[in-house]
């Protein structure tokens, strides 16, 4: 069973979920994340799911569980990179992922967690 690597950036943790996330590794991921968040007193967790073509109700619930666990440990969860197709499926199934904020991509997600990277392009001025 593949273990999902957990990266540390500052006081946040970053996880990229791969296409072949099975039920077993999802459970392991939840447990590993809880351990790491507690160990470093992390402020936030970013889960990037842009590699997922399909999110079934189990994975959606697991993401919700992770977020709940993380929030009990006083950290917040941001999910980034949900694809249009996945977003539509989740809405049609009526699945919500509570306790999370969402971001278009990992960069925006990190910004939501308060980690500011060097700007990729000039910020827009409206003058």
């Amino acid at each position, binding site marked *: 069973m593949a273990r999902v690597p957990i990266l540390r950036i500052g006081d946040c943790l970053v996880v990229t979920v791969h296409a072949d996330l099975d039920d077993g590794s999802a459970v392991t991921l939840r447990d590993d994340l809880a351990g790491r968040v507690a160990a470093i007193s992390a402020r936030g967790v970013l889960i990037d799911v842009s590699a997922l073509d399909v999110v079934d109700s189990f994975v959606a619930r697991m993401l919700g569980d992770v977020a709940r666990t993380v929030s009990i440990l006083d950290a917040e969860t941001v*999910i*980034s990179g*949900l*694809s*249009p197709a*996945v*977003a*539509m499926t*989740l*809405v*049609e199934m009526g699945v*919500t*992922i509570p306790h999370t*904020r*969402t*971001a*278009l*991509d990992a960069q*925006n*997600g990190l910004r939501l967690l308060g980690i500011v990277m060097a700007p990729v392009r000039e*910020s*827009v*001025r*409206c*003058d």
Partner: protein
Amino acid sequence: MRDLLQRPGSVLDEWLEAQRRAGVARPDLIDESQQREESAQLLSLLGGALADTLPVFPDDPAWDELRTYLDRLAESRAVDGFSPTETARLMLTLKDVVFKALRDKVPQVPADAWADFDELTRLLDTLALYSSEVLQRSREAIIERQQQDMLELSTPVVQLWDGIVGVPLIGTLDSRRARLVMETLLDNLSETKSSVAIIDISGIPTVDALTAQYLTRTAAAVRLMGAECIVSGIRPQIARTIVDLGVTLDGLPTRATLAGALALAFERTGCTVEPSA
């Protein structure tokens, strides 16, 4: 020959047999008893309309009853899933019956001449039916393409500002269109990395519970992607309808005008607009 068709009972079985041979009978679409009943009705109407002088079809009032019956029959065939050729062949198979009677009446015509005649008639019928079928198919293809074009034209996603896209909706929002709007909008969001989507409903005549549901679903999907949705262009009577119907647009920021929505979007993206002077 006419008296043959004026005694419908005598040729019904023969006709049904001819239909079976020509593959007109489709037991998978309508059952045998219905086929028989319809054929009997057609024969009796046809026999009733035939007079000494052959009335011109379809203008002559003598045909009214048969025409109405044929209209209804053809309509129900379309619903049942018959092809135009199969529907047309129903009447054409009656020729087999007539020709057979004719052959019995004129025994001096050699058999091979009859066979030749029979084959050629069949071939010409098939050619005519084939061309009409192709015509119909290409016409349907044109209609379908136009529908698709209209659907696509009716759901544009426009870039209003860096990070802000707009969807002006005009006309009624049915489920097919709502899905297309959602698809186009989400694809556009992920492509342009825009963080605010403004859905302008000024052009939607009325908002009912279903429309509101489509809007909240779209907004939910947009939120999942990590962007935000604003609904603008809510006219006073639409606001009243929404309240009267008890419809909720929960968690969806609304603005009366597109300008108001744009101002909110600027606020969310951290832009300010100032007069140049």
